């Protein structure tokens, strides 16, 4: 395995630096209150400190996780509540003093020791809005390299890295870029798909909040590589904090000459804007996203033409997931081969896996492809948060299959998952304990599809509504065998009669629930769990 170069935050201001995350997940469990309490207590004690707000390291069960810069490096404490702050000062945390909440050096924490952080190398460490921090931690070396080697060699490097799209379909990024590069047009675009709608995923959001310049750099490199001078980030309205941070980062980058003309003193030109969706899951589908960017209803377009040839406003367009784009700088900086040396089979590099739901150690776990699902859920995740047995794991968001523990030997790899009718998708894993009702989850999958369908295909629009009704009858214990058969038929119709993966993949969670958890469907008359 390759050694990953260490990263640290840059500047040395006055006072002891205390790092408090501003990631929305940390805010959701009290990080602002903690920062306020630290400031107040330091003032009361006359202690010289500077609070630096960072992204999250991704150990969410320990949030708010506060780090104090000491002689031995940063020492973490967590989960800290505002009421713990006086005791932490009293325990001498400014010099790394011991306290029940003391975690130690984050780099030594088993959850981080096991990871290979390439895309997430800086997240949670640096001040997300400091260009100095970003550059000190390796930022803009990738773009400098791309400028040096030129567009064609940059596309070549991305192809050689083996990077596959992290948005769901796993399409090789280099090949997509080559198509756009080879297309002739007066204008080309780079579009970042940050419409992270999958339940159980938050990696895009963490980069937007914790390392926004990494995305800006990645998109600028993409622009250089394919000859596009304009880019859009399409984010979601459910992410107000991420959008605010990204907007601020864009302003800073423009002011610092990192966007616009003559970037890094070269003749490179790239303009970048943030657009925000309005609560439609289907707008994560790339052609619906383009429609939405054009100000229209987010209805899926038929392919061909590919967006790479006729994308935004009919021009050649790279549409990539945020993680794909945020991984570009490190590939250029450390080399395509360096990246490709991680992973297994045709799944090269690392994947930022997101452990979510009923899991003891939920968070962001970036690792080379190849660990088994069981290792990730049981060893890294520690099993359920409720301490009950794990019953199912939904992989790859609302369109992904439910896997039972008997499939925990599946390696985390695109092909191995596909062989089990499952998805890596955007890297989400949602853990459920033994109280889950899988028939209810199947109903939810159908209901979600009905709710979010763009309406273009009948099997998706009508089939999903019928599907939810059929599960209701099963839940009520009516003609169970016949209704299960009907549900399976409906799933097959949806699989083959849908234009996009919303209708086409909703059958996977439904069918996997029936296949692996038949006892939840073959039930006697019960009060309906559905509303």
């Amino acid at each position, binding site marked *: 395995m390759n050694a990953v170069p260490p990263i640290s935050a840059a500047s040395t201001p006055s006072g002891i630096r205390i790092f408090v995350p501003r990631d929305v997940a940390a805010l959701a469990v009290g990080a602002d209150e903690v920062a306020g309490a630290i400031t107040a207590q330091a003032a009361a004690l006359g202690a010289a400190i500077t609070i630096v707000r960072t992204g999250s390291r991704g150990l969410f069960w320990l949030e708010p996780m506060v780090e104090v810069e000491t002689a031995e490096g940063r020492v973490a404490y967590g989960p800290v509540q505002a009421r713990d702050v006086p005791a932490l000062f009293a325990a001498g945390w400014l010099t790394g003093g011991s306290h029940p909440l003391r975690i130690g050096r984050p780099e030594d924490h088993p959850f981080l020791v096991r990871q290979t952080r390439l895309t997430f190398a800086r997240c949670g460490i640096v001040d997300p809005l400091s260009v100095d921090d970003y550059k000190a931690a390796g930022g803009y070396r990738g773009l400098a390299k791309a400028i040096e080697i030129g567009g064609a060699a940059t596309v070549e490097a991305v192809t050689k890295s083996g990077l596959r799209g992290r948005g769901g379909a796993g399409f090789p990024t280099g090949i997509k870029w080559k198509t756009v590069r080879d297309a002739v047009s007066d204008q080309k675009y780079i579009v970042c798909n940050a419409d992270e709608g999958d339940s159980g995923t*938050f990696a895009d959001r963490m980069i937007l909040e914790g390392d926004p310049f990494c995305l800006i750099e990645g998109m600028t490199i993409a622009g250089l590589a394919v000859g596009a001078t304009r880019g859009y980030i399409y984010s979601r309205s459910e*992410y107000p904090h991420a959008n605010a941070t990204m907007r601020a980062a864009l302003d800073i980058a423009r002011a610092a000459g990192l966007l616009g003309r003559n970037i890094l003193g070269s003749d490179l030109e790239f303009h970048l804007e943030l657009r925000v969706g309005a609560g439609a899951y289907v707008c994560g589908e790339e052609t619906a996203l383009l429609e939405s960017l054009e100000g229209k209803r*987010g209805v899926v377009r038929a392919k061909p033409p590919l967006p790479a040839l006729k994308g935004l406003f009919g021009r050649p367009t790279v549409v990539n997931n945020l993680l794909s784009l945020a991984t570009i700088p490190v590939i250029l900086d450390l080399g395509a081969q360096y990246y490709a040396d991680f992973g297994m089979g045709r799944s090269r590099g690392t994947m930022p896996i997101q452990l979510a739901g009923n899991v003891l150690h939920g968070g962001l776990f970036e690792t080379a492809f190849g660990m088994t699902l069981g290792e990730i859920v049981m060893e890294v995740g520690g099993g359920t948060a409720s301490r009950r047995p794990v019953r199912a794991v939904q992989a790859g968001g*609302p369109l992904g299959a439910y896997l039972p523990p008997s499939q925990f030997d599946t390696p985390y790899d695109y092909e191995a998952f596909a062989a089990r009718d499952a998805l890596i998708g955007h890297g989400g894993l949602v853990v459920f304990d033994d109280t889950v009702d899988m028939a209810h989850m199947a109903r939810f999958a159908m209901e979600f599809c009905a709710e979010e369908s763009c309406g273009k295909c009948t099997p998706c629009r009508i089939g999903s509504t019928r599907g939810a009704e059929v599960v209701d009858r099963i839940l009520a214990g009516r003609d169970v065998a016949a209704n299960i058969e009907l549900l399976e038929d409906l799933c097959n119709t949806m699989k083959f009669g849908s234009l996009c993966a919303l209708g086409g993949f909703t059958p996977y969670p439904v069918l996997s629930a029936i296949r692996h958890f038949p006892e939840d469907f073959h039930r006697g008359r019960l009060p309906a769990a559905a509303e």
Partner: protein
Amino acid sequence: MPILHALQETFGHVPQQAVPLLAEALNLSRADVHGIVSFYHDFRDAPAGRHVMKLCRAEACQSMGGHALAERLLHRLGLDWGGTTGDGQLTIEPVYCLGLCACAPAALIDGRPLGRLDQERLDAAVNEARNDWSRP
């Protein structure tokens, strides 16, 4: 879209009267504009309550008991999804994932995030909102 977001930000909804104006300004038919507004779940055609809670209904939140939590809350307030309390103080809207799935169940109230919700924390947030007569 940026215009619609701005309207909703200002008025709390996209007023019916705005549709013909938008159509004219953007050189679209009224039906087009209506089609766009109605396509996106975010845009309301009527004002919401003074405070808006977006409660996550997606899978990760369900795995931590979010479903039961939401049902109980709606029942207690006598509301359906999207409904507003009789005093006009609080609207409860569904949302499908806030990216807080490792701190589930989760919600946003007036844009403020809440994670690791249990009955007590949720009730406290709801009661606070119902007693808060300031505009967020």
